[in-house]
């Protein structure tokens, strides 16, 4: 019989730790060797007990569970981390994985998913709570779709100065006026202007204005006509 896998439970809510321990306690091959309510205690235990796996809450009173993950992995690269968190937001999940965690479970699915997560992670695989993963993927899809609609890659390539010049060009100012306004030479204004037109594939000031109006840089006031 192989040796039991040792597990550290880190959460500042004792009752929640109790719940997790109860779930783990039902599986003979796992053993909870320690529990901690804050990062400092947790790190000490990790050093001392060298557990195979740690369940880490993101919100700890003294530090973030993401940081704790990083620090524990510094102590031992062998330790596996499963983040158990209230957060279901994409960037927390991303950050948890970036910090070195290989599993992520939202707290409300702990009773259903925890054991699966521990099993998966201890096997050396990544685990993401399906509740979260579906959401994340859906959103990622949505963003991907949306992005093509709402942003404009060409305009994004303009420098802030070029944006500034473009706004003024579209607003009908002459090169001379722009140079005075921005305290740059007329030559520089001309350079900016041609670069803008090149980047946006525009060929006349009228096209620049039309483009700017489309983006909302200027208002082509049809009401006044």
């Amino acid at each position: 019989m192989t040796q039991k896998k040792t597990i550290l439970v880190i959460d500042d809510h004792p009752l929640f730790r109790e719940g997790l321990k109860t779930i783990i306690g039902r599986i003979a091959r796992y053993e909870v060797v320690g529990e901690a309510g804050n990062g400092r205690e947790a790190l000490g235990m990790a050093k001392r007990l060298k557990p195979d796996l740690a369940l880490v809450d993101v919100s700890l009173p003294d530090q973030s569970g993401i940081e704790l993950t990083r620090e524990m992995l510094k102590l031992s690269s062998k330790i596996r981390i499963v983040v158990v968190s209230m957060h279901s937001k994409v960037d927390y999940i991303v950050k948890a994985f970036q910090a070195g965690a290989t599993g992520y479970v939202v707290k409300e699915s702990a009773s259903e998913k925890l054991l699966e997560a521990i099993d998966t992670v201890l096997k050396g695989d990544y685990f993401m709570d399906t509740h979260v993963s579906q959401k994340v993927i859906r959103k990622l899809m949505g963003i991907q779709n949306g992005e093509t609609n709402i942003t404009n890659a060409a305009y994004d390539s303009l420098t802030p100065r070029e944006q500034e010049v473009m706004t003024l060009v579209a607003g009908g100012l002459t090169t001379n006026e722009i140079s005075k306004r921005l305290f740059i030479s007329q030559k520089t204004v001309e350079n900016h202007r041609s670069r803008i037109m090149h980047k946006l594939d525009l060929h006349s000031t009228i096209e620049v204005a039309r483009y700017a109006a489309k983006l909302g840089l200027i208002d082509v006031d049809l009401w006044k006509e």
Partner: protein
Amino acid sequence: MNKKPTYEEMEQVFRKLEEETKRRQKAEKDLQKSEEMYCDLFENAPNAYFFISGEDGSILRCNTIAMELLGYDRATLMGMKVFDLYADTPYGISKAQNVFKRFKNGESIRDAELQMRHKNGYPIWVNLSVEPVKDHNGNIIESRSVVIDISERKRSEVVLRERVKELNCLYGISNLVEKRGISLEEIIQGTVDLIPSAFQYPETTCARIIIGDQEFKTKNFIETDWRQACDIFVHGELSGTVEVFYLEEKPACHEGPFLEEERSLINNIAKRLARVTERMWTEKEVRFLKEKYEDLYHNAPIMYLSIDTNGIIIECNNAILNKLGHTKRKIIGKHMTTFLTGKSIASFKKDFPELIKTGKLMGVERQLVTKSGEIIYVQLSVTGEYDEHGKLIKTRASFEDISSLKQAEERIHSLTHALINAHESERQMISRELHDRIAQDLSTLKLGFDTLLYNQASVSLEESQKAAEFSEIFRNTIAAVRDLSYDLRPPFLDQMGLVEAISNFCRSFSEAHGLNVHFSAAGMDNIRLNFETEINLYRLAQEGLNNISKHAEATDAFVKLVAASPNIILRVEDNGQGFDVERRLEEATNEKRMGLRSMEERASLVGGKMTVESLPLKGTKILIKIPQKKGRNDTKKNDTGH
């Protein structure tokens, strides 16, 4: 003679006699003729001739003109002494006696002017020349006197003299009037004192002038029966009189004892006084108005200041002096910018050329700096002053201290900002509470519940199903609480950034409200905004769309977010029914309908500006410009608490 004359001799003598007689007769005839001629000449000469006895002055002979001149017949005259013919005046008898004395001394008198007296008593001015006639022994026996009537000339002289007196008087009045700083009272007193000298009998003349309720008199003034007067009309209204009185009876003239010229003089004086009075009254009125104006200008509660076309201060009133704490000397001649804050100097420089061009600048705000360095907010309106060629010569500005208004406004701003911030932080607090406490506790409960059955020896299928249902309710509740927590804060904002957050909001708003929301963003990829800016841009888009769905009755709404360095532009537009912007903002303030106002405040909270344009039946355009604040604020990551 022995010898008897011969006939021839006799005849010769006779002839001689006869010739002599003839010659004599002729001579006599000639003499008679010459005597007749002389007599005729003497009698009918154009001048009066008198022959006066050198002994006692009795009249020996005189001619016709002499009789006509004096009104006597020859017989009467022949019995008279020459002195009886002179008037009883300083130029009469006494002077005549003087002439007689000189004549007796053998002196010739040429062109003496004396006054003779007509038989009827009136004086006659004459020019008298006397030539003494002597006998062989050199004794003076008689005079030959030529008398020329010069009454006419004398009368002209008198007239001239009177005229000169009048002119002197009028000249005197003119001099008075032109004296600098002289009062009307002094002019009139001076005039009244000048009047007597212009009249025929200055010593016995007094005068009085009444103008308005004031009376001016000569020192010797007494009212008598011999009065000449003229009314004074000022601005066509009877305003007084000029009166001249003789203190004693004088010979009758043109108008009582007064000369015709004196009538015209007094009329002239009255007219002149009227004109002077008119002028002085007008001047007085002008002075009064000027004083009133100056009082109004200098002591007005509003600050006034005039600058020339170069911006140099040329006039100011007390209110502005008091406000600035400077003396007038410290302000006049200085450039306007001396008393402005840096920001106001910039606006001044921007507006001034336009002001010079149009001569008008209304309701702009400026900040004045007082002597003690305090900043005063003023609202000013400026109008130009032009010369007769229409060229702007200066501008007049009125300033109103709006510091307290400004303070109140700023107070409202800061309160509103505090409110918005409080609102936002309250949402965050509730969100955090929901997320970190309630959802956390519910999760603990769920976990406890789920593990509760682990230790039960036997659990029926029904019980275990029920427990699973409860567990599912737990899960959903937790998810709902967490979503609520996320909704209180813009979801996605700190996950995917502003663009995605707004995009997502627009999408769900579209679905929820049946409004086509078109969202576009440009240039936002490369900029990092602080959390405050992001959340407020998000809220602005949110509030903008909420307003549209509540009021606009639009089918389409457009939300455009674009980076326009150094600003970010957010446009929220619709094709709805539009509204009157001014009125809406006013109503909003009055009825606490805070839609647009709160958007304005929110924009200004992050240093931005919002403009609203709306046209009935066309729609509404909201433009928000917010300065980019570089660097992402870390508060973002702390928003749900670590």
